[in-house]
């Protein structure tokens, strides 16, 4: 037994090392290291500091849009325990519904020094509840039946993929495969943020609107009755039922909130870039990367993840073809998960 003595000590050491490696701070450290590598690489490649700053600003903008989608993904996962692969296409749906609404409204002048008129704002107000209702309706006809039969998670994910393909096909049929713009040939006012970093006023609107929605979601979850019930269901669905919480009503509000955020996110993304039938589909991987990076089911983690992924995506375009942006974001997610599999906000350890 004497020979066995050193063993516990080395085991304790190994546990200490792995707990340091797996801690939240080591993940923060990893992200900081990646940032440092990017800064060094940019100076080595002669990318100017102003350009980098500009890309970071664009990353924050993209992060805001991603956050709107990621919040929905993480809420739906928390409350319903399903990976909603149709969420990106809910964003596409929102963007195109807005296009349809704006096409029937009389065009107005640009307002408040922005690049769009009142009709975009009207569409925004209409699209948010509409996408929420569509999301809930789709739940009633597809996912709810699977939940009631206690289907395996992979069946739910496949059903969600089916819904995603369905929505995209309808968008293709109705609007065609070409790019579309909310406004064509209209001047888009630009302001200088700091020296050399210029952004469009539309983009400032996008960021402000996403941040406002994020604050509303925070208030909903922390202060409102139904928001607390969503967190309760995410925590312990059986106990929620036993407590007498009308779970079907909570499910309704979860889809309304998730769908509304997705609809708004799709519109804002479409305003910033352009509309394509597969725009939301291509956002799906970055959305899940954000959610997983921040620990799936955790709302604040999803926000953190979305802004991280947004910035990495944009900054990577200084070095690689912009088409690889989402892939760069995914690489960061994989590296982060190697260090800390439960994500930034996960419990344990």
């Amino acid at each position: 037994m004497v020979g066995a003595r050193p063993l516990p000590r080395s085991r304790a050491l190994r546990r200490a090392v792995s707990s340091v490696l797996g801690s939240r701070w080591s993940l923060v450290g990893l992200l900081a290291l990646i940032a440092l590598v990017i800064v060094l690489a940019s100076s080595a490649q002669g990318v100017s500091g102003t350009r980098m700053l500009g890309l970071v600003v664009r990353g924050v903008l993209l992060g805001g849009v991603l956050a709107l989608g990621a919040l929905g993904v993480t809420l739906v996962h928390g409350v319903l325990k399903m990976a909603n692969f149709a969420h990106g296409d809910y964003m596409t749906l929102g963007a195109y519904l807005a296009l349809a609404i704006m096409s029937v409204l009389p065009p107005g002048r640009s307002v408040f020094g922005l690049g769009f008129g009142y009709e975009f704002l009207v569409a925004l107000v209409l699209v948010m509840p509409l996408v929420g209702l569509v999301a809930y309706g789709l739940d009633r006809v597809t996912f709810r039946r699977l939940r009631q039969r206690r289907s395996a998670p992979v069946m739910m994910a496949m059903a969600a993929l089916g819904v995603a393909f369905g929505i995209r096909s309808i968008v293709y049929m109705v609007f065609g495969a070409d790019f579309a713009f909310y406004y064509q040939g209209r001047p888009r006012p630009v302001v200088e943020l700091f020296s050399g970093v210029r952004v469009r006023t539309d983009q400032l609107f996008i960021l402000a609107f996403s941040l406002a929605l994020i604050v509303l979601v925070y208030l909903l979850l922390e202060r409102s009755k139904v928001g607390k019930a969503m967190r309760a269901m995410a925590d312990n669905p059986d106990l929620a039922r036993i407590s007498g919480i009308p779970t079907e009503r909570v499910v309704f509000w979860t889809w309304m909130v998730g769908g509304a955020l997705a609809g708004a996110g799709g519109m804002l993304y479409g305003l910033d870039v352009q509309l394509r039938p597969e725009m939301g589909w291509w956002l799906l991987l970055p959305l899940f990367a954000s959610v997983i990076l921040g620990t799936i089911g955790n709302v604040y983690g999803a926000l953190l993840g979305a802004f991280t992924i947004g910035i990495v995506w944009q900054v990577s375009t200084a070095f690689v073809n912009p088409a690889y942006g989402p892939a760069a974001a995914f690489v960061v997610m994989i590296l982060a998960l190697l260090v800390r599999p439960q994500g930034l906000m996960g419990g344990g350890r």
Partner: protein
Amino acid sequence: MSLLTVEGVVSGYGEMQVLRGVDLRVEDGEIVSIVGPNGAGKSTVMKLIFGLIKPWEGRVTFAGEDISGMAPEQIVRRGLCYVPQVDNVFPTLTVEENLEMGAYILDEPLKARKERIFELFPRLAERRNQRAGKMSGGERQMVAMGRALMLDPKLLMLDEPSAGLAPLLVDLIFEKVAEINETGVAVLMVEQNAKRSLELAHRGYVLATGKNQVEGPGAQLLGDPEVARLYLGG
């Protein structure tokens, strides 16, 4: 009329039969304790009364109304609340939010109700803003009981309230059960701590192999050689 009656209930999970004919009743203001060996179906009876599993045969009535097959949200409205044995709090919600979830069906301010729970469990008042998942086992049990008391139930069902607690806390929990009962709430509890729970109970049932074998006043059951053979000593 009894507050709660369970008549000739046969039930189980999927194909597996667990309950083979259970009859029991709880009168207004009573503490009734169900004891019995592991696997006797004690927790299953609780789940069945609360509608989480359906009876294959027999029925459950509460205050004269047949509640077998009702959804939990309808059952709690009628004044029957339930504390499961495990996972009985919302870990990321604060103590106060846990209590609020217990009265979700009410559309009224809950301040007065919460204050009453805090009077019963002063320990919780100090920690009202703490997340339930970060609390000790005894404190979690108090949160769970508090949550179930938010609706002022006529009958409180407790599944193994003392399981896994340190002896001092077991005393405290049993004291609280007596205190709750003194305010007029009937209590139906399942306990593995048969001696303690029969001492407290007005009446008890011994459940074995899915049937209730013996019924009687708590003190009488404690002294019954048949009970000792079936469970206590056997």
